[in-house]
């Protein structure tokens, strides 16, 4: 296993592996999204208090989960990159950031669309919403920092450092609804059990997997571009790019 890991940690071999994996994840994401949205909009029952408007959760919740989870994965790669100086780790972190920012934005946006009719406000400064907004700003800030530093290696390290510092925010988002009085409701899915109808939950979980698959496909596509860009002076890239 360790041998394999080091083998695939080399950008040249990972480039090929990623290329083979992308279609599987991309098609998986498309199929799961179709199934998930069908269950969400046609099979799942109407909610007893929110009516049809609750159906936003099929997009809102997976997007919010992915926004937080991708950040943790980025922080993981940043820590590995800083400790082991592995080239691929920093590229993975850079490849994940735009997708994470996209999901965080989607969760804030769908939340606002839903908040107006349900709560009576597009936006409130409660702990959950504010900490999620900070997450979006962290993503944007990290990407801006990478873009602002011309020296690639220094940029990698600076971005990784900011990513690690910002990682503190993720548990704050997750537990904000428990720690403080917030307008946002508590978690429906807890270790002690789920306070959600089974079909609703199924639809939401399928959408969550669709979001996972999409995120993996998007990140791998981006990391392939980064590998080509950074390794363009090596023989193997020249060999690939030759007509």
């Amino acid at each position, binding site marked *: 296993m360790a041998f394999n890991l080091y083998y695939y940690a080399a950008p040249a071999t990972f480039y090929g592996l990623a290329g083979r994996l992308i279609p599987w994840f991309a098609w998986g994401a498309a199929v799961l999204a179709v199934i998930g949205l069908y269950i969400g909009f046609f099979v799942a*029952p*109407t*909610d*007893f*208090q*929110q*009516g049809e*408007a*609750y159906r936003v*959760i099929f997009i809102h919740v997976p997007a919010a989960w992915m926004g937080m989870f991708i950040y943790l994965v980025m922080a993981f790669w940043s*820590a*590995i990159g*800083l*400790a*082991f*100086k592995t080239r691929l780790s920093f590229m993975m972190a850079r490849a994940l950031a735009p997708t994470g920012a996209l999901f965080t934005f989607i969760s804030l946006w769908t939340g606002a669309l839903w908040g107006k*009719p*349900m*709560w*009576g*406000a597009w936006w*409130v*400064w*409660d*702990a959950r919403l504010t900490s999620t907004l900070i997450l979006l700003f962290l993503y944007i800030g990290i990407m801006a920092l990478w873009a602002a530093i011309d020296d690639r290696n220094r940029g990698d390290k600076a971005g990784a450092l900011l990513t*690690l*510092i910002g*990682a*503190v925010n993720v*548990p*704050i988002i997750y537990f904000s609804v428990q*720690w*403080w*009085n*917030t*307008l946002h*409701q*508590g*978690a*429906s899915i807890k270790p002690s059990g789920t*306070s*959600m*109808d089974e079909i*609703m939950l199924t639809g939401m979980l399928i959408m969550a997997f669709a979001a996972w698959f999409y995120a993996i496909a998007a990140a791998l596509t981006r990391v392939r571009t980064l590998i080509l860009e950074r390794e363009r002076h090596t023989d193997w890239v020249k060999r690939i790019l030759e007509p």
Partner: protein
Amino acid sequence: MKPRHKKLLAIALSVAGLGVAVALILNAFQNNLVFFFSPSQVMRGEAPIDRTFRIGGMVEEGSVKREADGLTVRFVVTDTAHTMPVVYKGVLPDLFKEGKGVVAEGRLGPDGLFTATQVLAKHDENYMPPEAAHAIEQAQKAQQTVVRP
């Protein structure tokens, strides 16, 4: 220990240290991070009653009264221990209902009446079809009648 493992440990410890620092800061700011105060907290004088703040709780059953102008609404917010009367002029959100969660922003008058400028509905994390909700309600009622005699 190899140097790279030392570095990884240093990174892990720094992140943990930062986490503790942020936890302490958030703990110190506990009161400012609260989105609303319950009627009991207001009674205990924990709310900033000299300026605008939010109260939250349940809309007491049977307390919602609309005035003749059709816009002004009076209701009572309760946290089961204490209650607070609220008056609000404006459009209520869809989820505003007796027995459900509510958050109102406004000022507390000297007469103990809370004049709200905004009313938000707070709902819970339960998602189920109406039939299931009805069944649970029936079961709870049945249980109460069993317990009472």
